[in-house]
């Protein structure tokens, strides 16, 4: 499985690619149990008619700021041992956002490259920042439907190497050139190329429907909810500080180190940079100038990385001798106005998923929200705390309430760890599982926003120790 990660990363960039180096950790460590705090006894969310689906293991590469670690070539000799026989996996699903045209079904290419049996089908999903959430819930769906028993779900993003296209006119000329039959036609077409045609098209992190970049939208969202620059900087600082603490304490166990030939082994996320409020205050707004509040320091950064989880039916996991980490319970997807509520996914999805699971905010012990921007998190928290918003825009009787700080993103978040678009979802779920084990909670909640004005939330229940 770890090699799966590796290969998914290899298939992404074309050579000479900038890439992350990493070494894999065997999934066979899965069954090792750590000493646990005893879980509070709460009712379980198991339902008689619904299959129990478990998270067996979750791993990820270190998340690296795009362009920080790169080598000109890769050597992929290593095939890592996994605890699971490669043919015991029934299906593979991967999420990704910015696709490389050559590997549009990156899941399949990665699986083949990683040495998984070529009899295992694989498909790729995309749903912006919640792509790997979609990969996981698709897996849950397949297992629940009795189609499979063991699915590898994951996500990958390679911002250091995004496909850059020729301009539309150039593409058109080149395509016509393919069809041109005579030399004269070809020369004519070549002659029609102008300097302007050579300008490439860069992909932008902008909404197609509104042409607004996400940072710009986040800044407007923060302003709409009256989130100040200081509040955002404070939250970003908290994220970095907590991430640093978690990293130093060795809590980020899902990270597996990775060796790139000719380079050192990379074993840590490299975007964690606790700074000071003074330092952060010096930065100029990145999107809305000059009066905006979203800066480089209080936004998540472009990140390279991959993640994966092994999801199984409980029966199968136990039969194979695994000790599952957690149950994956109810989940929801929501969507709203992509212009003014682009990043409010968690606000919409949290009450909905709680309702489905029959839980309240108080029942949740561990919260892991995707931090796209500090301003976005703060805006969501304010929206969740507003009766007016719940009544006016969500058609609910009252607010859902805000997660308590002491349960919220305690090991850092996307702001500090990084946010490889397609890979963040698996990190969130794995972190919840690990935190539940570590902190002894029973229920965890994952929530995330995504481009397109979509959102996701999932309830995770600790596996009895």
């Amino acid at each position: 499985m770890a090699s799966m990660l590796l290969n998914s990363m290899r298939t992404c960039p074309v050579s000479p690619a900038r890439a992350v180096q990493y070494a894999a950790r065997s999934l066979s460590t899965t069954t090792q149990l750590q000493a646990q705090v005893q879980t509070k006894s709460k009712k379980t969310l198991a339902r008689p008619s619904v299959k129990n689906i478990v998270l067996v293991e979750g791993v990820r590469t270190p998340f690296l700021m795009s362009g920080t670690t790169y080598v000109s070539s890769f050597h992929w000799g290593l095939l890592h041992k996994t605890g699971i026989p490669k043919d015991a996996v029934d299906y593979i699903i991967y999420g990704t956002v910015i696709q490389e045209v050559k590997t549009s079904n990156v899941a399949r290419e990665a699986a083949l490259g990683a040495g998984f049996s070529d009899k295992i089908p694989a498909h790729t999903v995309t749903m912006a920042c919640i792509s790997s959430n979609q990969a996981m819930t698709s897996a849950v769906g397949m297992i629940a439907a009795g189609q499979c028993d063991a699915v590898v779900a994951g996500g990958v993003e390679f911002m250091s190497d995004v496909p850059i296209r020729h301009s539309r006119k150039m593409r058109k000329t080149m395509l016509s050139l393919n069809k041109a039959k005579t030399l004269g036609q070809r020369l004519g077409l070549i002659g029609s190329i102008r300097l302007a045609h050579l300008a490439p098209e860069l992909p932008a992190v902008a909404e197609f429907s509104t042409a607004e970049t996400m940072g710009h939208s986040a800044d407007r969202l923060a302003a709409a909810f009256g989130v100040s620059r200081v509040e955002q900087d404070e939250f970003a600082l908290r994220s970095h500080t907590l991430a640093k603490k978690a990293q130093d304490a060795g809590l980020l166990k899902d990270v597996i180190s990775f060796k790139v030939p000719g380079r050192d082994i990379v074993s840590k996320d490299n975007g964690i940079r606790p700074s000071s409020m003074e330092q952060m205050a010096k930065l100029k707004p990145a999107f809305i100038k000059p009066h905006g509040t979203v800066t480089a320091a209080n936004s998540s950064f472009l990140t390279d990385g991959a993640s994966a989880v092994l999801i199984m039916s409980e029966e199968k996991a136990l039969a194979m001798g695994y000790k599952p980490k957690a149950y994956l319970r109810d989940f929801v997807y929501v969507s709203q106005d992509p212009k003014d509520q682009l990043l409010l996914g968690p606000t919409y999805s949290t009450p909905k998923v709680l309702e489905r699971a029959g839980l309240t905010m108080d029942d949740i012990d561990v919260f892991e929200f995707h931090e796209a921007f500090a301003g976005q998190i703060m805006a969501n928290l304010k929206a969740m705390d507003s009766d007016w918003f719940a009544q006016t825009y969500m058609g609910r009787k009252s607010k859902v309430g805000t997660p308590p700080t002491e349960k919220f993103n305690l090991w850092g978040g996307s702001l500090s760890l990084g946010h490889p678009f397609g890979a963040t979802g698996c990190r969130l779920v794995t972190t919840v599982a690990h935190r539940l084990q570590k902190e002894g909670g029973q229920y965890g909640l994952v929530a995330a926003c995504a481009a397109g004005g979509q959102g996701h939330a999932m309830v995770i229940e600790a596996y009895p120790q």
Partner: protein
Amino acid sequence: MAFARAAGVLSKFAVSKYPLLSGHASRSLSVSSSLAARTHVSYELKDDVAVIRLNDPTSKVNTLSVQMQSELSEVMGEIWSNGAVKSAVLISSKPGCFIAGADINMIQACKTSEEVTHLSQEGQKMFEKIEKSPIPVVAAINGSCLGGGLEFAIACQYRVATKSKKTILGTPEVMLGLLPGAGGTQRLPKMVGLPGAFDMMLTGRNIRADKAKKMGLVHQLVDPLGPGLKPAEERTIEYLEEVAVGLAKGIANKKVALTKEKGLMQKLQDTVMGLGPVKQKIYKTVSEKVQKQTKGLYPAPVKIIECIKTGVEQGREAGYLAEAENFGKLAVTPESKALIGLYQGQVICKKNRFGTPEKEVKKLAILGAGLMGAGIAQVSIDKGLNTILKDTAVEGISRGEDQVYKGLNTKVKKKALTSFERDAILSNLSAQIDYTGFDSADMVIEAVFEDINIKHKVLKEIEAVIPPHCIFASNTSALPIKDIAAASKRPEKVIGMHYFSPVDKMQLLEIITTDKTSKDTLASAVSVGLKQGKIIIVVGDGPGFYTTRCLAPMLAEAVRVLQEGTGPKKLDTLTTSFGFPVGAATLADEVGIDVAAHVAEDLGKAFGSRFGGGNVEVLKTMVENGFKGRKSGKGCFIYGKGKKEKSVNSDAEEILQKYKLSAPPSVSSDSDIQHRLVSRFVNEAVLCLQEGILTNPVEGDIGAVFGLGFPPCLGGPFRFVDSFGAEKLVSMMRRFEDVYGNQFTPCQLLLDHAKDPSKKFHK
């Protein structure tokens, strides 16, 4: 059916939906006692920034009324005398409106031009004080900032505006026959350069925030916000205020520069524009252009040029004086009164006086995907109405869909829409050749061929498939609605909705009720029309209703004039120089010679010899020869793609030769020909009022100007009677009557007005 592209020019007069000068009764409230509590202007201190908030409690928009002005001067005085205040922010608390302009009643209440000049000078003084303010004043603009509002804003030291679609800046005074009379003609040229200032003031067009920033009209933009803990608009205004306060502090501390360093190109451009001969050339070009477009019928543009020129050439003092004096002069011109009348009439015709319909129309079905049908579809889907466009043939709907797509795509090209929005809008349209989905339609508008039998057939087919509450509207231009309703099982649901072509450009909608049409049906039709952005007149039933009925005698007269040997070109010149945006011959081509023949024949049957004049055979022969007007490439003129100059169709002239009449010299001078055409139009309009087809003269004026292109400078047929004099008109008509007979017999109401000069259609 299709009445003219005529309103190309008119669209300029179509003052946007944001009232620029709204007349309201605030004047009666203006107690100028300093003891009275302030109701329009308030301020609070935020640190050392005074935030001045404008909010006229008596109206939906802020206007620079007497009350507003006096409270403002008071507040400014207090702020200036407060040493703790280092800067100020001027903002409106009204959603969607900064200041929509001066109070129109204030100007109308003046008896003499001197009084108006005085008003102008007061405004100039007030804004000059703001300009010379010892502390910086930041204008924070959200929503319409027009006329006097813009003049106020540009007197401030700094301007920040929201990038909202509702934020528009402009000097629309010219559309009311006025000029920016509070320093605008003096400040704008300095701010946006001579060509920019001419463009703004002579066209009066609205400028969006991003364009305003490019032009240098505003310094900075603020994005509109979505909903947060408060409604979006409210929070956006708060946010704008926060940003403006920050800027005000920055300007006071000299951290924010008031002027941007000009680029090399800009400097170069400014130098060139500053050269004497260049300036002279600009004045000359602009004057010539104005003369060509207005034909000397509109005095305001000329005065605007004069004011700008005086200010630039002779300095500020002289400029201010010229501005105030000319403003006074213009305010008392009949042209200005006519245009203001139209503006006010248009405001009335954009309100639903018939109440809220029981059931809102959400799904509309249109029959016939021709020019009209597709046009109606276009203005419906972009307002979010689910629309079915049905035709009998696939080719028909394909052409119709193309037309809608092209119409929307033009907006994309002009950046008024994004391509994404265009596609989203198009998703509201369902083009089809069957009656699927009609069972859930709330209203059906038919735009099929003008033949009573076809209309009856369609009506019966439709009534078999639509739900009981569904309204059936006919887009006919001449067939009486009661005749169409005769085939209906539920005549209370039948109504006439007469659109004008091209539907997306022409603003008028004529709604026709029969005595059986229910109130709710009318309310529904009006609310749909308003949603489509139309100016609506509601008229009684009868052949040709109001608009077609007025146009028909004028066209009949035009044919006679042609038969009498006046060429199409000359006829066009005569009509356009009278103020019609489109010449009579061109108009006939635009309407379609076949349609004109059809209408002339129908109405001729209905009204008898009064509708005679030119020989209908002329039109019929032209149609037989294939000269159906613009659509067939030949009519009175020959139309070709890409040709700008149209040439006279010599074959049509031959036909005219065949039907030649001799021109009676006593009534064939240029002026007589003009008045023959106009008096028949006007007489028929007055007769419509007399017969109750029209309920009031206001709708008559609006219908004639916005639907038929009656000269806007005359304000419509009724205002024309008032200003020209009924008596004079009647005596003129008597003279024509002597030659031609009853076509020129003045109607009773006109005679009444002629007898008693105190009788006026407009007070």
